[in-house]
């Protein structure tokens, strides 16, 4: 009964994907063709057609980023590269292009040193996407439990030992991967990171037009949204500076 339900669910997901996939793939291919002909504006328009349908894939965001880059809109390129990276953090092409695009922004922000654990966590989160971490979590749980079963059923001492330590290690790995997947999931869902899309933004000391001006950010810089009110957000930049800006000056990743 249970496995029957699961199968139905999987089939449903596959069918729903397949139903529109053809149409999106056709749009994607014609956008690629436009890009090849250096008709970047057309390519952007076609790629954005797919994103407008709330569809995403690392390839789509990567190509869209490239089209914006070639068209000279570095901020939009960075935004889409970041989105592609969120979906596929291990892809080298995405990292290279994001780095190149970041070199073209006006703000050169020195990242503040972070605590070892925070840095490790960030690095792990950025290693793979939330889906991969989740699948790893399930796999390591399965292996862990299998090894524990071996421990219980084993007749010889060596096998028992191997089963026990292996099982404990994999259960530990399950916890770690679950934690990372959860962090990755929550950051992806809350869209905490954003890119400045306005030419120059004055960051203020408090959410009010008349407050102290702290510093100026330019188009393409990445910020972390740490707090939110109705039309203001509190942002933190890589060097640790924090301030308030209007919500509509940034685009969330």
């Amino acid at each position, binding site marked *: 009964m249970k496995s029957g339900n699961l199968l139905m669910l999987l089939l449903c997901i596959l069918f729903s994907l397949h139903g*529109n*996939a053809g149409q*999106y793939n056709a749009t994607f291919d014609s956008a690629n063709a436009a890009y090849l002909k250096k008709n970047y504006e057309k390519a952007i328009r076609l790629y954005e057609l797919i994103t407008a349908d709330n*569809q995403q894939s690392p390839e789509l965001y990567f190509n869209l980023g*490239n089209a914006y880059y070639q068209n000279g809109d570095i901020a939009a390129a960075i935004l889409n590269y970041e989105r592609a990276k969120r979906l596929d953090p291990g892809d080298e092409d995405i990292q*290279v*292009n994001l780095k190149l695009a970041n070199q073209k922004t006006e703000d050169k922000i020195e990242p503040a040193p972070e605590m070892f654990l925070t840095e490790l966590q960030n690095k792990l989160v950025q290693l793979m996407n939330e889906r991969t971490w*989740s699948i790893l979590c*399930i796999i390591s749980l399965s292996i862990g439990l299998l090894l524990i079963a071996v421990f219980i059923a084993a007749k010889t001492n060596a096998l028992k030992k191997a089963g026990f330590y292996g099982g404990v290690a994999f259960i530990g790995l399950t916890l770690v991967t679950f934690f990372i997947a959860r962090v990755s999931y929550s950051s*992806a869902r809350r869209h905490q990171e954003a890119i400045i899309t306005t030419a120059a933004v004055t960051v203020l000391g408090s959410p009010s037009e008349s407050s102290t001006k702290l510093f100026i950010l330019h188009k393409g810089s990445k910020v972390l949204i740490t707090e939110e009110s109705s039309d203001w957000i509190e942002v933190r930049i890589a060097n640790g500076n924090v301030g308030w800006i209007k919500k509509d000056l940034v685009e969330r990743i």
Partner: protein
Amino acid sequence: MKKAIILFLLITSFANQLLAQKLTAQASKTTVAVGEPFQVTFSLNGNGNDLKIAHLNEFEIYQGPYNSSSTTVVNGVVSQSFSLTYVIGAKKEGKFTLGPATVNVGGTIIQSNALTIDVGKATANSNSNNAGRQNNAQNPSAGRPAGNNIFIEAKPNKTKVYVGEELSVLYKVYTKVDILQFIISKMPSLDGCFVQDGKTSQAQTSETIDGENFVTGEVKKSYVIPQRTGKIVIDPMEADCIIRQQSNKRSRDIFDQLFGGGYEEVKYKIKSRPITIEVLPLPATDKPADFSGAVGNYSFKASISKDNVKANEAINLTITITGKGNIKLIDPLKINFPEDFETYDPKITQNTTTNDGLGGSKTFDYLIIPRHEGNYKIDHLTFSFFDPEKKEYVTLPSPEFNIHVEKGEHADAGASVYAPQNKEELKVLGDDIRYIKTNTPVFSSADEHFFGSILFYLGLLLPVLGFIAFIVIRKRNIEMNKDVVAVRERKATQMARKRLTVAEQNLKANNKEQFYMEISQALYGYVSNKLNISSANLTKEHITAVLKQKKVSEDTIANLLSTIDTCEYARYAPNAASGDLQTIYNNTVELITTLENEIR
């Protein structure tokens, strides 16, 4: 010259005759800085005495008074003139009135006009004029006020030029007096300009300006090339010159008067007028991509020494630019040599001329060494410049150069000996983003997340369920196995008892063979069932080991083994068997009871 002066004096004297007697006050400047010396002259065309000047105390008298008087007789009419000159300076800032002066002419008092002097702040250079103060009759800064005898004029050939366009400034001195010495004391400084001096003609010519004849000579010619846009002011040129002038003092020495006396050497400081040049930016439209600032009119030639060489042989690429303009400021051309070529900075030779404007030729010698065989191409070079006369950019191309490089003679030997040097680092020619991905993507909804989805929790739940199932099934199996053992154990005594009953019947019937078999079977069956040993493993050694493990005493084990031995011996050789059947029977019953107690 002298004649002209005398004539002039005669004319003025004659003119004076016609006028009534009059006292005039004249200042060389009416606007001065504090401390700046200037000259005040009171002149009377006639005879008078007792000159009094009002308000002179407010000024400091540097020199003077110098008297000068002259008497002229023309056609029997005697006319006299008299003048008194002071060199004075203002003590403080403000507006002051000097004079009027009064003089007694034959009993009547004649009053002069009053002078109003505007005194400004002291300027730094006001004191520098002190050396020439004594005879500084000219106004140095005003260029060429009427009546001056000597001045410099700076003449630019144009006042509106493009950046980088050349203009020439000719400095000429105009004089009506004899110049004994002429020293340029200050050259015009030209910020933001490239300056080169040109040749001047040595010849003296005469020119007429406002009806006055001057002797002129070229002092200096500068070619100026502005390097920035906007208004550029060319500072005045300053010169010290010593001229010979008729003395104001009447010489008492008769010889002086006879031998050119009455003249004195006077030092003058003269200045040209500053010139303002308007510098226009080069037009931005149609500016060629390779334009690097050359302005003028040039021709361009490029050639290579050979186009068929062996690897590691040097080739010379010579580029010659000839023409008029700022040839010194021409930068080497940007040449896209094939990446594999070794190239060196060019050797630059230039040859400039200043005849009729700046010009000349500039040669760039490039040494290039192809390091590997193959066919290479140097794209055609272009040289662009701006022609200010046509007001347009001109681009001159050179032909393309195809270079065929053959394998060098020592290439192989070099390769084996200098192998590490032959390795080249990968040359990065440019940075570009990676190309788009063309594989077919799998699209998913943007709001879809695997983590936290039902599928994810099912995935987590499934192994856990599997594990629980494993534990449950295993437990049940253990339970069941446990039951089988218990049953066999429980039945062990029962079975043994049955066998013993049969043995007892055989005993009574004195059926020896059957008796021993039953006793043996009872013991084996009991041990097998009680200890859960399969019949295949039912050897004496195994039984001993298991019993020892169960902590059964050595005596009991030995007793059991000897009984089994006796039974087996009796079974196979019934006649040889000894011992009482009843004893064996009793012993067996006792043994089973002991085992029952000792196996825990």
